[in-house]
C-alpha cells in the first residue's frame, strides 16, 4: 500500500483482538510512515481505540504482529512502548495540573545536581524545549494556569521528548477552539517535517482533511480502506465509515412556524447571579437551537431551566400553568428531561445495566413504591433501545461497556421513557462518531415531528441549522439574538455571536 518514498516506522500486520465472544479487531493492517500524518477514522466501536491501545502497548493483540522499523516487537505496556519511541497524547491531558510546566516536562527524568533536582536547569531546558514549539510561557507556573491548548502542546512536547519516533494524538482537539486547533496543527506540522510518524484520531472530518496525509478507516473491527487523502473527498470518507450514505440532511429551514403547535413551556424573566434575565417560549413540535461560544452561558441557561441551579427569580409556565422548579426532581415531575453535556459525570450510571439506565428516570418519577417490575423494565428498555437503535450485546450489561454514542442514546431513551413534554439537550453529539451523530440529529428531527418541545445546545452550527425552527444566540451570559425561519443560516449565527449589528432580542 505504501508509496515507494514512504518509510514505514510502525507497522501492524493482521492484528486480531478478541473480547469474550466479540472480535474487536479482525486482521487489521496499519502502517505509520515517517514524516506523515496518518488519520485513523471509524465510528465509535469500530475498533479505533482498541487498535491504538495495541499500537501503544496498553493491550496485547490476540493475533498478528507489530513491527518497528522492520523489526518485530512485543509491547508489555505503554511505558514499554514509550521506550521504543511510541508516545501518546490523550484528549484529557494526562499531566499533573498542580505542578509547574517544567516539572511536568521532566517528571521522572529530572536533571539532578548532587542528588537534588536542579530546578534552574529544568526551567532553562523547559523554556528551550517549548520555544521549539513556539511557546513562550512562564515554565515555573502551574500547568493548570494555562489553557487546554497549551497543556496539550506541553503534553506533546513531553511525549516527543520521551519517545520521538511515533506520536499518537487521540482526539487532541476535542476541547479546543478554532484558533487553538490551528496552533496545535502548526506544532504537528513541524513535527511531521522533522520526520515523526504521527497517528491522528479525531471526530472532526474537516480537521482530517486539513492536517492528515493518509487515512485508515475502520468499521466493525475491520479495515475498510487505507489511502492517501488527496484522492478522497468528505463524502467518500463518510460513506466508507458508515457503509451507507448518511450525510446530514440540511433540510430547508422553511419549517419554522409552520408545523409548531401551542406554547408548551414559557420562561419569564428567569435569572440567576451571573446570568441576565431571559424570556423564552418553546412550542409543541419545535426545536429551539442555542448557539454561542463556550462560556456564553448556554449550559447555565439549561441548568437553570432544569433546576440544577436554583433561580434567583422569574417564572416557569408549562402548558400555561405556573410550576415550581427548584431541583431536577421537580423538573422531571413537570415532564422535563435533560441530557447533560458531560455524559460520564452527570449522565450515565456506569455500573448499572443498560436496562436500569433507561428506566431510572421513569422510576424516580413514579416514586419508590410504584416499582416497575422486570417485565415492564425489559419491555421499556427493549422498545426505546429499538427506537433509538442502541447497540448493546444485551440490556443486562453495564452501560459503561457501551461506546459513547450508544451511552448518549441510552440517556436519550431514559428521557423518552418518561414521555417528556420538554427536552433539553446539551451538546448531544459531542464526542460521538459520525454515524451516531447523524442518527441523533435525525432523532431530534423525528421527536420534533412527533410534537415534542426541544431546547438543543450545540457548538456545531451546521447541526443547529439542520434541526432548529428558531435559534437563540448567546453572548456574555445573555440571549442577544433570536433567529427565525429564513434568517437561520450559519453566517447569520456567526454574525450574531460575533456581535455585528443584528436585530435586538425580542
Amino acid at each position, binding site marked *: 500500500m505504501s508509496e515507494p518514498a514512504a518509510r514505514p516506522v510502525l507497522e501492524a500486520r493482521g492484528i486480531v483482538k478478541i473480547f469474550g465472544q466479540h472480535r474487536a479487531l479482525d486482521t487489521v493492517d496499519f502502517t505509520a510512515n515517517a514524516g506523515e500524518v496518518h488519520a485513523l477514522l471509524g465510528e465509535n*466501536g469500530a475498533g479505533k481505540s482498541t487498535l491504538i491501545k495495541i499500537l501503544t502497548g496498553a493491550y496485547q493483540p490476540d493475533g498478528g504482529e507489530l513491527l518497528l522499523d522492520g523489526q518485530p516487537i512485543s509491547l508489555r505496556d505503554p511505558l514499554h512502548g514509550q521506550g521504543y519511541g511510541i508516545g501518546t497524547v490523550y484528549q484529557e491531558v494526562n499531566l499533573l495540573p498542580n505542578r509547574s510546566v517544567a516539572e511536568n516536562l521532566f517528571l521522572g527524568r529530572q536533571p539532578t545536581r548532587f542528588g537534588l533536582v536542579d530546578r534552574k536547569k529544568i526551567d532553562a531546558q523547559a523554556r528551550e524545549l517549548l520555544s521549539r514549539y513556539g511557546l513562550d510561557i512562564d515554565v515555573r507556573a502551574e500547568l493548570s494556569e494555562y489553557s487546554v491548548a497549551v497543556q496539550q502542546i506541553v503534553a506533546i512536547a513531553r511525549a516527543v521528548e520521551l519517545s520521538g519516533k511515533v506520536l499518537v494524538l487521540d482526539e487532541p482537539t476535542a476541547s479546543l477552539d478554532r484558533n487553538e486547533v490551528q496552533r496545535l496543527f502548526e506544532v504537528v506540522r513541524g513535527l511531521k517535517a522533522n520526520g515523526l510518524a504521527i497517528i491522528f484520531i479525531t471526530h472532526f472530518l474537516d480537521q482530517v482533511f486539513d492536517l492528515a496525509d493518509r487515512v485508515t478507516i475502520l468499521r466493525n473491527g475491520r479495515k475498510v480502506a487505507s489511502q492517501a487523502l488527496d484522492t478522497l473527498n468528505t463524502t467518500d470518507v463518510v460513506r466508507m465509515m458508515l457503509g451507507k450514505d448518511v450525510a446530514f440532511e440540511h433540510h430547508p429551514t422553511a419549517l419554522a412556524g409552520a408545523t409548531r403547535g401551542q406554547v408548551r413551556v414559557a420562561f419569564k424573566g428567569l435569572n440567576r447571579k451571573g446570568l441576565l434575565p431571559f424570556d423564552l417560549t418553546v412550542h409543541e413540535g419545535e426545536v429551539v437551537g442555542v448557539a454561542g461560544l463556550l462560556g456564553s452561558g448556554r449550559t447555565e441557561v439549561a441548568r437553570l431551566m432544569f433546576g440544577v441551579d436554583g433561580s434567583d427569580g422569574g417564572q416557569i409556565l408549562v402548558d400555561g400553568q405556573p410550576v415550581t422548579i427548584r431541583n431536577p426532581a421537580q423538573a422531571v415531575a413537570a415532564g422535563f428531561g435533560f441530557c447533560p453535556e458531560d455524559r460520564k459525570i452527570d449522565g450515565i450510571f456506569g455500573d*448499572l445495566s443498560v436496562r436500569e439506565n433507561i428506566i431510572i428516570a421513569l422510576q424516580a418519577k413514579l416514586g419508590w413504591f410504584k416499582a416497575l417490575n422486570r417485565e415492564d423494565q425489559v419491555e421499556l428498555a427493549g422498545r426505546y433501545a429499538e427506537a433509538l437503535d442502541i447497540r448493546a450485546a444485551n440490556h443486562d450489561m453495564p452501560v459503561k461497556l*457501551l461506546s459513547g454514542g450508544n451511552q448518549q442514546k441510552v440517556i436519550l431513551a431514559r428521557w423518552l421513557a418518561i414521555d417528556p413534554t420538554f427536552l433539553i439537550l446539551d451538546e448531544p453529539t459531542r464526542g460521538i462518531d459520525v454515524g451516531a451523530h447523524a442518527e441523533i440529529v435525525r432523532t431530534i428531527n423525528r421527536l420534533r415531528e412527533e410534537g415534542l418541545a426541544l431546547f438543543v445546545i450545540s457548538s456545531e452550527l451546521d447541526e443547529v441549522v439542520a434541526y432548529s425552527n428558531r435559534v437563540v444566540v448567546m453572548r456574555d451570559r445573555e440571549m442577544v439574538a433570536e433567529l427565525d425561519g429564513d434568517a437561520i443560516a450559519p453566517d447569520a449565527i456567526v454574525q450574531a455571536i460575533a456581535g455585528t449589528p443584528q436585530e435586538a432580542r425580542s
Partner: protein
Amino acid sequence: MTRPTVDIRPTTQPPLPPSRPLTHFFTRPQVIALAAVLLVNWILFPGFFTITWQDGRFFGSLIDVLNRGAPVAILAIGMTMVIATKGVDLSVGAVMAISGAVAAVMVSSGYPAWIAVLAALGTGLICGLWNGILVTVLEIQPIIATLVLMVAGRGLAQLVTEGYIVTFSDPVLIFIGTGSFLGFPMPVVIAAVMMIAATLIVRRTALGLLIEAVGVNRSAARFAGLSAGALLLIVYTFAGLCAAISGLIVAGDIRGADANNAGLWLELDAILAVVIGGTSLMGGRFSIPMAVLGAMIIQAMNTGILISGFSPQFNLVVKSAVIIVILVMQSPLSAQLFRRRTPPGASK
C-alpha cells in the same frame, strides 16, 4: 488477558433471560468460605453439627453461631444499604449502647417493657436521622459525620446509665435476648425476619435500584430526578434502627446495659460482613443476604476458635487471614486469573 472494554458491540441484541442457576450460588466465594470455616470447626470439634432438641428449643454449636452472629448480622443489614450509597456508618456500635441503656434504664425505673422497647427503637431512629442530616444537609463526609456519634455515643450512653451497669430482670427484654420462637433463639428469628423484610422492601419497591443509582453516581442521580437526600436520610435512619435492635438483643442477653462495652467495635465487624458479602465500599450493587452470610462467616470463625480452645487473641489473626483470602477471591485480579483459564474462544 484484559478486561472487556468500550468496544463490545455485536450487531444483534437479544435481551438475555436472567439465568441464575443454584450452582451459581454455591460457587460464590462467600458460600465456599463459610463451608470451609464450618468444615474446619467440624474437624476441630466433631460434635459441631450436632443439634439437639431440649426444653422446646434447638441446641448446638451451629445454633450458637447463628445466635451469636445475629447482632452483627442485623447491623450488617443496615450497613449494607449505607455502604451501597457510598457511605459508611461508624456509629452503630455506639448506638447499640445508647439504645440498650435507654431500654434498661426505663424498665428499671418502672416503665412497662413495650414502652422501653419503643423508646430504645426511637432512640436508634433519632441517632440514625442525626447521621443522615449531617450527611445530607450539612454534606459532611459519612466517615466523619458518623465518627461524631461513634465517639459521643458512648458518652451519651454513660449519661443515660449515670455511669453504672444497669441490670434488670424484665422478662420481655430478657426474652428478646435469650428467648426462643419455634425452637430458634429470638435473636436468630429477629435477624431472619429483618433480613427477609429488608430484602423484600428494597427489591419489591424501587428503593434498591434508586439506592444503587445514588451509590454509583450521585450527580447523575440528581440529573435523573432522584431525591438522593431523602434516600440517604432513610438509609442512615434505617441503619440506626438496626443498631437499636441489636442493642436490645445484646442488653437482653446480658440482662443489663453496659455503656462501655455493649457493641464495642461491632461497627467494624458489620462493615467487614458487608464487604465480605461482596458490596463494594465504592457504593452501587448490594446484597443484604450476602452481608448476613458475611456476618455468619465472622461468627463461625469466632465460635470455632472458642471451642477449639485456642486463646481468643488468636482469633484476630485467624480472622484477618480468612478475610484476606475472601477479599483476594473477590478481587479483579483473581477474576482475571479465573477467566484466563477458560479458553478465550477462537484465536489465531
